[in-house]
């Protein structure tokens, strides 16, 4: 049970990274248009 919790926690951290990186990339692309 503990391993599943740990795996899910790591997956959430990876997704957090993807979300933040994606938003940053989007912000950079759109900011360059101004």
């Amino acid at each position, binding site marked *: 049970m503990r391993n599943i*919790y740990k795996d*899910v*926690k790591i*997956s*959430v951290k990876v*997704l*957090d990274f*993807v*979300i*933040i990186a*994606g*938003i940053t*990339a*989007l*912000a950079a*692309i*759109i900011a360059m*248009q*101004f």
Partner: protein
Amino acid sequence: MGKKSRFRLGNFGDVPQGERREQLREFLINNALYIFLVIVIIAIAIYRPRFVSPGSIVNIISLSAANLPIALGIAGAIILTGTDLSAGRAVGACACVAASLLQAAGYANKMFPFLPTLPVFVVILIVIAIGALIGAVNGFCTAKFNLHPFIVTLATQLIIYGGLLMYLTLGTNNGQSISGLDASYTNFINGSFLKIGSSAIPNFVWYSLGITVIMWFVWNKTAFGKNMFAVGSNSAAAHVSGVNVTRTIILVFTLAGALYGVTGFIEGARIGSNSAATGLNYELDAIAACVIGGVSFVGGIGKIRGVIMGVVLLRIIFVGLTFLSVNQNLQYIIKGLIILIACAIDMRKYLVRK
């Protein structure tokens, strides 16, 4: 994730500071895309004030309304943990059929010169029937053969495209685009009785709103709607509970197909000149709008207001990018990134719930 929240609305003093920070972080991450898009919209409105002019707002409302029925159809497929790649081609086929049956009587390049201009309501029923048939085929293959909707709709997408190319060679058309539409059709769709400033709101906006109300009722107040969410959440549990899973899947796809028919009918007059390329990639925008609006790919989750918000947000962003004169190629990259972020947030919410 298993932590019991001690947060009570209006009583912040009871919440430890660490937990408050964690809740704020969760809120920011889960709503990151909405917050970002709102900031971009505000920035564009400040940088280009014409973006919030009455004409621009009416344009955004019109484009959103044109895409809303197809998004509502695809949302049903996504709630069933599927997708529908044939939506765009179905819209294109229905648009071409509607246009071919509603060309002006005296038009020189009329596709079927022997055919009188049919009543608008007859053609609406015809294209809805065509769309529903396409949806029924998708649903039947998915439910009966246990194939993934991705594969089924990929196949039907190609079949529809081939069929449409053959249809466009019928009569006197020879593969050309279909235009010269009858005034009864164009007035029915593009006519207007209400204006914002000097910009007229086309009639199809009201038709889309009416369809949205009907779909809200279907999703939330009918047994069929509840069955759809049950099958999407857990089809095995739904089956054990007495839900006819096969019939539900077929009906969801059939309803989606009918909505593609309506979208095609609207697009036929809105665009004015229809060809085999009509409807190309419409499903991508619709899927993106659904995901942004919170319709979950893990199934069983979605709200009508979410679909509306997703469609409107996406349309606002792309009209805004046009105002910024962003390269059309770059818009594809931006669209892809938005979909990626929306999917990541959706999966994150699912994992946190687990």
